């Protein structure tokens, strides 16, 4: 039995190519495990940066806090996050995983406020690296709760730059990088090359297309041959279980 966390982690790991320089941020349990998974399977030469300021740690198990001391174990070096951001500014970072409280059809994200900025209904935590990095490097957005409160027609605030108003606007405005995929608990999404509108790439096993449509507050592009998300292999699952005996991977789904 594959849990949704395990499936999402595997989807994230598969976005990492061998040799990529990848950054995992704070409160990013699934990306953390995805990085370790990728490095131990198909991407041994990836460079793994994280919020514990280390490079390529080899912890025997993962911590709950994704900036926690366990992520220092057997690292080859410390690197302050500032230096990683410098590398990003030089377009040397290939990927970062970012979250979103709201997302629109063009992959713009909100992590700042629900309601009016000056008089918010809900003050959210803030976007961390989002507003800087989404303008310059490729990103993967992960969303553990695919529903209409998250997938909205219009954002209350743009923290993270997606494809802005779609089409070539992002390019015209001189931004680099941009959202490559959105990985949720229901499906994997990408963006149409022309319009930059969100498109279903694959639906997770057991999920109905209807479920995805109903839980999305805007129209998704549905491709002709809808794929089913590839499951993790037995070996991948075993690795996840080994590296995460305390089920850190589930903390976005179940209360601790």
């Amino acid at each position: 039995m594959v849990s949704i966390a395990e499936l999402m982690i595997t989807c994230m790991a598969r976005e990492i190519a061998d040799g990529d320089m990848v950054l995992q941020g704070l409160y990013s349990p699934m990306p953390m495990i995805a990085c370790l998974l990728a490095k131990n399977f198909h991407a041994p030469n990836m460079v793994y940066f994280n919020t514990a300021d280390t490079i390529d740690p080899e912890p025997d198990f993962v911590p709950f806090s994704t900036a926690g001391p366990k992520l220092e174990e057997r690292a080859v070096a410390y690197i302050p996050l500032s230096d990683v951001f410098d590398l990003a500014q030089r377009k040397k970072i290939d990927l970062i995983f970012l979250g979103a409280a709201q997302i629109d059809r063009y992959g713009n994200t909100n992590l700042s406020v629900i309601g009016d900025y000056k008089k918010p209904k809900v003050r959210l935590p803030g976007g961390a690296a989002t507003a800087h990095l989404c303008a310059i490097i490729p990103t993967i957005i992960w969303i553990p709760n695919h529903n209409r409160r998250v997938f909205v027609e219009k954002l209350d605030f743009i923290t993270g730059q997606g494809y802005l108003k779609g089409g070539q606007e992002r390019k015209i405005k001189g931004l680099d990088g941009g959202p490559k995929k959105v990985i949720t608990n229901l499906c994997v999404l990408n963006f149409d090359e022309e319009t930059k509108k969100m498109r279903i790439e694959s639906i997770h096993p057991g999920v109905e297309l209807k479920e995805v449509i109903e839980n999305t507050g805007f129209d998704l592009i549905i491709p002709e041959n809808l794929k089913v998300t590839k499951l993790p292999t037995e070996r991948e699952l075993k690795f996840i279980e080994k590296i995460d005996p305390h089920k850190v991977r589930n903390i976005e789904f179940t209360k601790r």
Partner: protein
Amino acid sequence: MDLKEAIGRFVQNGDTVAIGGCGRNRSPMALIREVIRQNKRDLHIVGREKGMDFDMLIGANCVRKVSFAMVSLEEFGLAMNFRRKIEKREVEVDEHACYSIISALRAAKMGIPFLPIGGMFESDVLKVNKNMKEINCPFTGQHLVAVKAIKPDVALIHAHGADRYGNIITVGPPFEDVLMAQAAERTIVTVEEILSSEEIRKNPYLTTIPYIYVTALVHKPEGAWPTSCDVFYDSDDEHIKLYAQATKTEEGFKEYLDKYCFEKEE
């Protein structure tokens, strides 16, 4: 020096205070609690990705303005004092990205009034933040964002070891701790261990914050509790969960403060 004297002498009402650590790791919690016990007011607190430290100071009415990229209790939920005070417009918001906070501190460290950076464009964060302005490179014309320096009056940091002169050794992640110490006018450091001057002079390459940046040193084992301190201890997640639950109401937070701050002897 003890906590009382360090905070009493070197943190003034109205100060801009940079706070070390990241998330629930190596926050200078003993110093934070002392700031609250001494009822400091109108602080402008500055940090990259913060948690309970910022939330406590805000909840205890110590804070006028908050410069941040993220404030959260991670899996334990929103930082409720942060949320409440901003929704009530009782705290001024200076919302940043991680790198713009870092750049603001780097500018202060270098003694320059701004630093140009190459991201942020088209984010509403850039639109609402008056401390960022779009500029062009005088050589290449490249479109950039100027980030205004944030000069901390004081930095609060927890570290591993130091000699009595304040030569600090950190063996864990630097976070913004070193940068903050370099950027601030004054720096207060709590440490787990006091080392001999001989040990420091034997291995000067281990010193991460030289004494020239350190105003006050306090020997305070477990000074980061309930956050983690690398090789010394992990975060006390049970306690942070308790904090998250307590702060769901203002009353709950008050009870928490009474028990774990005002009545705590340290």
